């Protein structure tokens, strides 16, 4: 028996719940059968979360003096805040409201109405039993450090950094590579306007590099993240550059003089060369070069030092004895814009990449088109001199394919159209695009498709079966033959071409799972970071204070990456402006009168929140460090530790409620004690 006056509210959710659960029946049952449990009001309503639904609750609290509220509706992750706020408005402590998920856990997953109704009753009974033992609580307030860390300085990260820095707040921009810019710096043209990628990106890079509010840490990686929203401590490893950033002027003489020539498999996608001391491209930000230890003659054979000898600065900028530096920064919020990896086209052997010389990946082709790239923008075959007379472009390489990635990589259609245009423009070659579906959504994209169609590019709808150099028919000798079904005419076609470009998929970074773990967020099954809500909260994550932007969240083009970067910043700025954040008051505390000082709890806490008083032989929990997991509560053999919102009594009461009804709801579960005969 309880003295509490409990109100029970059951939502129809339109028909989402009421289709499978007899909500009127549940409401009547709660009102009549649960009277002795303290239920004084029981109502059902079409949309409990609507303002009218909330007002219903508020009115009951005020008029009937409810002391507890149970809302049976959707998942608490969706509307707990809504109903708590409603209670608060009516003067009831928000933590005296409990939600029961009868949509996600009942109506959407079960089909038998009778049994679903019974299960709803059991869940509500659990909620009623539990809520009676709830205590009024106050949210914990934590201050927000105004500094933000942004991980990954591609276009999305740069945009995010600039938004925050321009608002007057400090930003730490961490980039793994030696220069910021990300993949966009590798591209030549951007669809659909065909403006030059470098022309629109480099001003932003310079702005980020020079911004007084941005601390740029390139050639650096995050090693460790501690703390929580508002108060993260991040350990960052600044990898040894072997160039003193304080004195280097970025003149580039060292690069010129370095005798070690290396194939650049990263920035130039294997098409061009760089030196052992290098920067990715002339407009790199920061301008300082970096020494590639694996290929540097001095590091490998202890002689050369050409870079040091020719370095004109005083003191010399080249420091062979430089070591990695580990620094710590304190930040309040973190934006992860770590970008993507390109699908390794070698994984589809029948397309011949890596085996047939004139099969190129999209990134190789981007570098080839780029005026500052290895061919200064001329479209050549692998020999570096021959201009192709016919080119095949394959869409969806590694995308929309159950063997590799099920998802659509979003950019490939437009990118392939751009390639088709560039090939036509620069070589006049015949171009064949092989596609599954043409996906040209978004502004001005389909117009670009029309333009490329008018330019005389051939489009064949069908997934390519193979690319081969085995000629079978006259005219195929010395060519690459693309075998594909043309699904419009229902026939197999063999098209001989000089060059093949594979529009490879966007994949999550190879280490996205480790990074996600490091920052306490999760990855979806395909490896991209999981957002808090796919539609309503695409840049936040389940972990407060950690935001995601750009291709790290899923494949997207440049405008979408920039939009997300800016959106993440808006969320961060909101947090900074608020100055402090209210946290769920889910914390553990020790009743020191009961604590026996056994210290079993002491090593249960990974946050070092439990300290032990040697003098009094009792443990104490620091509420600022406690994260509220409750592991120590479960471990305490004397029941001296209790957890707010999840106390033993509350959970056991809920358990009692859940077990009070059978599966069919017909009867209270009766346990027959075994006779002693």
């Amino acid at each position, binding site marked *: 028996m309880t003295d509490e006056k409990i109100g029970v509210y059951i939502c129809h959710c339109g028909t989402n719940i009421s289709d499978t659960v007899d909500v009127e029946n549940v409401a009547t049952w709660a009102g009549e059968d649960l009277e002795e449990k303290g239920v004084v009001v029981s109502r059902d309503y079409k949309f409990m979360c609507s303002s009218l639904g909330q007002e219903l609750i508020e009115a009951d609290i005020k008029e009937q003096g409810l002391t507890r509220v149970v809302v049976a509706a959707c*998942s*608490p*992750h969706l509307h707990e805040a809504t109903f708590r706020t409603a209670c608060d408005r009516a003067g009831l402590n928000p933590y005296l409201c409990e939600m029961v*998920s009868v*949509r*996600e*856990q*009942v109506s*959407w*997953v*079960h*089909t*038998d109405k009778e*049994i*679903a109704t*019974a*299960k709803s009753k*059991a*869940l509500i009974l*659990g909620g009623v039993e539990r809520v009676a033992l709830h205590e009024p609580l106050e949210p914990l307030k934590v201050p927000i450090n105004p500094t933000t860390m942004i991980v990954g300085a591609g276009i999305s990260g740069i945009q995010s950094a600039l938004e925050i820095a321009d608002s007057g707040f400090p930003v730490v921009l961490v980039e793994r590579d030696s220069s910021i810019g990300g993949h966009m710096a590798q591209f030549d043209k951007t669809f659909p306007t065909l403006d030059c990628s470098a022309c629109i990106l480099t001003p932003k890079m310079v702005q980020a590099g020079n911004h007084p509010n941005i601390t740029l840490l390139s050639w650096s990686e995050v090693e460790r993240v501690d703390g929580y929203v508002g108060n993260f401590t991040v350990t960052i490893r600044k990898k040894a550059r072997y160039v003193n950033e304080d004195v280097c002027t970025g003149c580039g003489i060292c690069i010129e003089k370095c005798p070690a020539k290396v194939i650049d498999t990263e920035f130039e996608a294997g098409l061009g060369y760089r030196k052992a001391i290098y920067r990715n491209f002339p407009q790199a930000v920061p301008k300082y070069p970096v020494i590639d230890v694996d290929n540097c003659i001095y590091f490998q054979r202890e002689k050369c030092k050409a870079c040091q000898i020719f370095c004109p600065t005083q003191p010399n900028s080249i420091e062979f004895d430089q070591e990695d530096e580990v620094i710590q920064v304190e930040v309040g919020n973190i934006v992860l814009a770590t970008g993507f990896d390109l699908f390794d086209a070698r994984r589809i052997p029948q397309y011949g990449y890596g085996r047939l010389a004139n099969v190129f990946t999209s990134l190789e082709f981007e570098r080839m088109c780029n005026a500052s790239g290895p061919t200064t923008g001329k479209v050549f075959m692998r020999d570096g001199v021959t201009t192709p007379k016919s080119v095949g472009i394959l869409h969806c390489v590694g995308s929309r394919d159950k063997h590799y990635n099920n998802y659509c990589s979003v950019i490939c259609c437009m990118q392939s159209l751009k390639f088709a245009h560039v090939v036509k423009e620069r070589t006049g070659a015949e171009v064949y695009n092989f596609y599954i579906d043409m996906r040209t959504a978004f502004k001005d994209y389909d117009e670009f498709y029309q333009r490329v169609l008018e330019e005389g590019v051939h489009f064949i709808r069908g997934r390519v079966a193979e690319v081969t150099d085995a000629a079978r028919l006259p005219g195929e000798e010395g060519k690459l033959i693309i075998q594909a079904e043309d699904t419009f005419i229902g026939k197999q076609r063999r098209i001989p071409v000089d060059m093949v470009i594979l529009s490879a998929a966007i994949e999550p970074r190879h280490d996205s799972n480790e990074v996600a*773990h490091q920052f*306490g967020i*999760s*990855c*979806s*099954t395909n490896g991209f970071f*999981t957002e808090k809500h796919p539609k309503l909260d695409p840049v936040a994550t*389940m*972990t407060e204070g950690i935001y995601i932007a750009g291709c790290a969240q899923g494949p997207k083009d440049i405008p979408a990456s920039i939009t997300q970067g800016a959106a993440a910043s808006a969320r961060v700025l909101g947090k900074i402006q608020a100055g402090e954040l209210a946290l769920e008051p*889910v914390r553990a505390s020790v009743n020191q009168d009961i604590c026996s000082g056994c210290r079993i709890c002491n090593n*249960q806490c*990974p*946050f070092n929140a439990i300290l032990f008083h040697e003098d009094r032989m009792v443990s104490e929990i620091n509420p600022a460090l406690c*994260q*509220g*997991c*409750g*592991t120590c*509560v*479960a*471990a305490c053999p004397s029941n001296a530790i209790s*957890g707010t919102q*999840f106390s*033993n009594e509350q*959970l*056991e009461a*809920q*358990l*009692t409620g*859940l*077990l009070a009804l*059978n*599966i*069919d709801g017909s009867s209270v*579960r009766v*346990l*027959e*004690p*075994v006779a*002693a005969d």
Partner: protein
Amino acid sequence: MANNTEFEPLIIGFTCNWCSYRAADLAGMSRIKYPPNVRLIRLMCSGRLDPSFVLKALKGGADAVLITGCHPGECHYLEQNYKTLKRYILLKRMLEQFGVEPNRVKLVWASAAEGVQLADEITKMVEEVRDLGPLNWPAVVSPNGDHPIAETEPVVEEVQA
């Protein structure tokens, strides 16, 4: 068991707020169907699961208990699910001594993205428990539910110090 065709087990599921509870949400959002025999309790972490909750659930009429948490290495609270695992192993051993079939308590890792997997595990578990039949807790525990009945009274001998 004779009543197997009629028997609908009642299973209590303890879920972690960050992974498996959200997996259950996801299963709902994706309209994946699973048997209605499971009733879930949300904890902040599987590490909050006091093993006595499992015993109390079984004593209170549950035929089985499902414990779910984040995958090893993915705990929202860094490493608390390892503590769950340790307790789970001990608990299973204890239940066996009580005469409770170990399959009545199951630990499943389910990330927030694994709605399908969680639903599959629930379906599988319901089948398994249905085959086991009802847990007749009082049969192995004294009528007041407090102590397991030993088959013979243990002989208490005084030991010389």
